[in-house]
């Protein structure tokens, strides 16, 4: 028995080691991840809270209040008060502080805001006199309202990338694509069919999840359902197209899995699924703009939380359309039916 186990063990090791793409990926993936995370959350470690400081100057003087010396809090200068209020309301800032007249604003629906407020008040006692809490006009947006588009978008991303990319690689590996190639079916027809199939499935699932949460949790919807649906459709097409591009030539499921992870994880971290990257550096925020998920979430949140119209989200929609066209064109260009 041990002999047979050993034989299979050796064979599998050889298979893995001789699959250079997968091997390279398994070595590169953790390296890229470590360097990537170090870049995004570099410095003194990942900051836990993001606090806006209302002031005209672009630089924050840490000497004006002990709270500013707190570790693991990202302090972001905010010049426009209304912009600051909006960011607090939309959970992009955990707290907004103005040290000049000793006032602060917090979203009562934000758990992170609650803890940031505790830290502020604790540090404030050393200066004397309590800082005054001020109200933000309008309904506070609950965290669930803010995070729902993120969860729906993340689910869409995984479903599109893995549901298409991984499956196409499996079809190629087991010869099903070769069988299709022997028919009059064209690569572009195959790709369109895949996009359409996944689009339908993802939209049904997303609509179901959205409706369920909407009715059970009474989530906020300030915009038009038509515009939101359009965001979902264009976003889904961009994600499926990206999955097809990744799967265009890959023949190993392991390599495909690695590549799909390489794409999906940075998107999940940088596109603002769970938390806002308000305090991140401009390079990171710029990098996030190349990901379709960033535009999907920005658009969906704008429609759902701010009642944005199609015109308001046009830049993101145009970007998603351009990304989709680029992914589809490259996917069709480099698509191959078989492993040869």
């Amino acid at each position, binding site marked *: 028995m041990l002999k047979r186990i050993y034989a299979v063990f050796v064979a599998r090791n050889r298979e893995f080691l001789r699959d250079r793409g997968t091997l390279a990926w398994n070595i590169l993936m953790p390296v890229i991840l470590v360097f990537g995370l170090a870049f995004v959350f570099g410095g003194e470690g990942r900051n836990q809270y993001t606090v806006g400081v209302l002031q005209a100057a672009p630089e924050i003087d840490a000497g004006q209040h002990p709270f500013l010396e707190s570790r693991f809090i990202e302090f972001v200068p905010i010049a426009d008060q209304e912009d600051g209020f909006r960011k607090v309301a939309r959970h992009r800032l955990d707290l907004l502080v103005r040290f000049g007249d000793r006032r602060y604003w917090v979203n009562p629906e934000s758990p992170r805001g609650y803890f940031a407020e505790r830290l502020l008040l604790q540090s404030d006692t050393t200066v004397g006199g309590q800082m005054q809490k001020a109200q933000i006009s309008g309904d506070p947006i609950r965290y669930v309202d803010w995070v729902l588009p993120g969860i729906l978008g993340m689910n869409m991303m995984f479903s599109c990338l893995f549901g298409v990319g991984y499956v196409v690689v499996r*079809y190629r590996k*087991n*010869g*099903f694509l070769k*069988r*299709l*190639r*022997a028919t*009059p079916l064209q690569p572009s027809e195959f790709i369109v069919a895949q996009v359409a199939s996944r689009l339908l499935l993802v939209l049904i699932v997303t609509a179901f999840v959205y409706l369920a949460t909407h009715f059970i949790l009474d989530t906020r919807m300030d915009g038009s359902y038509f515009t939101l649906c359009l965001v979902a459709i264009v976003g889904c097409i961009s994600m499926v197209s990206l999955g097809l591009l990744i799967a265009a030539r890959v023949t190993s499921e392991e390599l495909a899995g690695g590549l799909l992870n390489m794409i999906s994880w940075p998107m999940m971290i940088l596109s603002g699924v769970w938390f806002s990257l308000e305090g991140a550096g401009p390079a990171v925020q710029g990098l996030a703009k190349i990901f379709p998920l960033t535009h999907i979430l920005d658009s969906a949140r704008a429609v759902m939380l701010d009642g944005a119209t199609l015109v308001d989200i046009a830049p993101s929609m145009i970007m998603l359309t351009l990304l989709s066209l680029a992914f589809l064109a490259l996917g069709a260009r480099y698509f191959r*039916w078989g492993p040869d």
Partner: protein
Amino acid sequence: MQIALEARNLVKRYPGVVAVNDVSFKVREGICFGLLGPNGAGKTTTVEIIEGVTPATAGEVYYFGELAGRRFREEAGIQFQNTALQDYLTVRETLEMFQKLYDRHADLDRVIEDCSLGELLERDNRKLSGGQRQRLFLAVALVNAPRLVFLDEPTTGLDPQARRNFWTLVQRIQAQGTTIILTTHYMDEAHVLCDEIAIMDEGQVIASGAPDDLLRSRYEGLVIELPVDDISGELDGIDHVVYDNQGIVEIMSTDVSQSLEALAPRVVNLNRIKIRQPNLEDLFLDLTGHSLRS
């Protein structure tokens, strides 16, 4: 009869290997044409070049006189040696899906009947036996009422009964006027099914023609077979003796009575002697110096 398909000077090179080396042949309409040879001879690569699924390094393929293209894809039916179908689909759904990929449509009920799939229509593809899968693959190749059907090693892995059933099926398809190109390493299969054959070895066609013509032109007489263990002395003075690697001695004889007389004193057990017609396997062995199964 028209030439349905012509392969001209096909070449396929991989790094360090010439898999197909200047292969040419013509296939007349309505016949069953066999491409024979051992595993690795280049049969499948040749056929996949013709089918358009593997690009050739050089050479052309003509279908009814024109370069194989869209019309060829529409009118050809292909059963691959290694392929898969979508999981979770039933036999009926699979056939319907493939039929929708073509403009030409066969009568699906007829295809189902011809391929004996009637009782399997609602079965999941994953739950088919080897023989059932092969019949489904053949049915998939027939959904477009093809004028030309490629069968690549269709009976590999089937039990003898399933193989013979498959042969009957192929003969039925040919009887409907369909041209068939069959690749196989089973010489008995080729002899039963093929009107013409091309024998390949090391990427080249080394002989071609009608099987009986090829055998007649090469051999006169019969083959006497006996186990090496049953021979007690030397076989000096007996012509055309071949020792194969299975422990069998083969003697080509134009006069069986005379050969048996000469053999009798040197054989300890006459009960295991076999006398048979020369076959394509003998021809292959003669042409290449090695067995099909070596």
